């Protein structure tokens, strides 16, 4: 049975130990709640879907230093050669690679008249042909793909058709249908670009940008001495294709440098390395803090058992059952834990606000202090139950011993 009032009396008359434990719990809750929040933010960032078939798609870089090479026809031959290799599902030249940390981006202007014209949010700009969607493995959810004859070769300002990500469509035209809309690429020419398709998800190259999910694919085959090629191949064939692709392309022309074979999943690991490191360090800190807190709780209980051995025996003699002794220690520590948890929760919110203003972190969600307190109650149970069970085994005959 619960004995909250006498337990409170006991705590109020022996303040030193409980106050030290209380301070430890307050600090633990404040730090653990904020650290858990940051960890979960980081994990949520790392879990964002790029929209591509990350384990199947890889890119490599192709440098053509031989001035005698006719770049456009050479690129077309190269891409065809790659598509014909065993294990390759599709391939396309591109301006940038998802999650790679480098590439192109631009804002656009939308609106039918000068009065209604407005600038869009920035978006990653992919140049590609009719194979691009299949090569990336993205899902087309509205409209259509480029037709082969629509794909133009040359500079970015030639673009006439665009396929956009759902996020960019929503940000630019709200609930209006994106298909058929016109936009203008200010930096890359003033030709109208007609939206012909919407893909469910396609992220850009910069994972820390606020417009990561905004992407536009334009109908351009970008021809340059330096070209990025995206290849979609069966899972596990990268090692073999690392050898096969250079061999096949060098057979056509040896004067090229081919390097940098990297799966998108590998790009993901690299660009999220700092987030992962942060999450790992904070997780270790959380575990360490919880361990120290549980040791503090268990130590306090063991000290109290030593100090109260005779008292426990007397309580048993007076009719306390073993479960009464266990519940006595549990309730005593639940009270400390709850008081510390509530104060710690308030400190956590305050600390969260400081972190928010100084480090531009999102606002701490209340669920984190609440979950931390609940976790701490569970930890208290685990830390207290073993010593408390030991206390419950103290013989009531202790009560009649003179020492």
């Amino acid at each position, binding site marked *: 049975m619960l004995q909250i009032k006498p337990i409170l009396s006991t705590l109020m008359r022996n303040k030193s130990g409980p106050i030290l434990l209380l301070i430890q719990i307050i600090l633990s809750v404040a730090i653990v709640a904020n650290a858990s929040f940051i960890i979960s933010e980081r994990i949520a960032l790392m879990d964002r879907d790029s929209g591509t078939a990350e384990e199947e798609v890889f890119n490599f870089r192709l440098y053509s230093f031989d001035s005698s090479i006719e770049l456009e026809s050479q690129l077309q031959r190269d891409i065809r050669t790659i598509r014909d290799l065993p294990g390759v599902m599709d391939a396309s030249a591109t301006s940038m690679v998802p999650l790679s940390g480098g590439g192109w981006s631009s804002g656009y202007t939308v609106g039918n008249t000068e009065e209604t014209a407005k600038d869009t949010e920035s978006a990653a700009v992919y140049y590609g042909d009719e194979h691009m969607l299949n090569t990336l493995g993205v899902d087309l959810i509205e409209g259509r793909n480029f037709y082969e004859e629509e794909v133009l070769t040359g500079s970015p300002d030639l673009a006439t058709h665009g396929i956009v990500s759902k996020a960019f469509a929503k940000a630019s035209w709200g609930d209006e249908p994106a298909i058929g809309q016109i936009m203008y690429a200010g930096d890359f020419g003033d030709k109208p670009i007609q939206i012909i398709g919407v893909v469910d998800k396609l992220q850009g190259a910069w994972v820390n940008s606020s417009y990561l999910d905004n992407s536009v694919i334009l109908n351009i085959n970008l021809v340059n001495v330096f070209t990025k090629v995206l290849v979609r191949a069966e899972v596990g064939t990268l090692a073999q294709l690392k050898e096969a692709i250079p061999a096949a392309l060098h057979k056509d022309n040896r004067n090229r440098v081919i390097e940098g074979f990297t799966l998108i999943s590998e790009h993901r690991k690299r660009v999220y390395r700092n987030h992962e490191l942060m999450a790992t360090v904070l997780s270790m800190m959380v575990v360490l803090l919880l361990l120290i807190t549980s040791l503090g709780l268990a130590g306090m209980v063991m000290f109290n058992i030593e100090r109260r051995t*005779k008292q426990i025996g007397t309580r048993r003699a007076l*009719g306390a059952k073993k479960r009464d002794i266990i519940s006595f220690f549990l309730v005593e520590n639940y009270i400390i834990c709850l008081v510390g948890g509530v104060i710690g929760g308030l400190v956590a919110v305050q600390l969260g606000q400081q972190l928010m203003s100084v480090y531009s972190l999102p606002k701490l969600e209340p669920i984190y202090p609440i979950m931390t307190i609940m976790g701490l109650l569970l930890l208290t149970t685990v830390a207290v139950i073993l010593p408390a069970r030991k206390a419950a085994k103290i013989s009531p005959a202790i009560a009649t011993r003179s020492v």
Partner: protein
Amino acid sequence: MLSMKNISKVFKTDLVETHALRDFNLEVKEGEFVAVTGPSGSGKTTFLNIAGLLEGFTHGDYFLDGVNISNLSDNKSATIRNEKIGFIFQGFNLIPDLNLAENVEVPLRYRGFNSAERKRRVQHALEQVGLAARMKHLPSQLSGGQQQRVAIARALAGEPRFLLADEPTGNLDSMMARQVMELLEEINRAGTTIIMVTHDAELARRAQRNIQIVDGQVCDFTMYQHGAVADKPHLVAGDKRAVEPSSVEAEEATS
């Protein structure tokens, strides 16, 4: 009320077996005031612990208020201790962090009484021992005699069938001891059975019946009723020694 038949208690270590009680027999009737005396190490405390269900015994039969105590579960033993037995300890065993009312309330909480009932019983018990006015005081603010009276109030609050007192005056000066003894006698007159373990021969003589334990067995069995010594003392169950009646009478004469 209390019946022990051939009770034995053996403490075993790797090297030694110690017989704390052997073939111990005792009958205590309802309303009796029995004093248990004996030299140190004779088994008095072991007897008290077994009688109070504070520890088990190795062999024998023990009936308390008609209930066979052999092989009771820990929970059942705790319930019987709480409902039928009141304990008074030599060192008072009050909980220092609780005030007098909270101390007296301890067994009542384990009994599951509601707050109003606990309050009524605490008030009544502290009035019985003359300390109702100090119920918010801590034990450390009381004298030894007052602390023992609080312990008696705690024992009485549950209205037990019998009281087990372990050297109740052992830590008190003679004046305080007399007051506590008078209180116990008053409680006994009100109908509560009392078994009191004591070293004090004078206190023992004030009990209705006096038994002596030597080497774990009941050695002497003398009735003091209406101030008169009863028949010649006799051995009980396997006793090897007897105390001469003259020595008992001599002690009484000097008291």
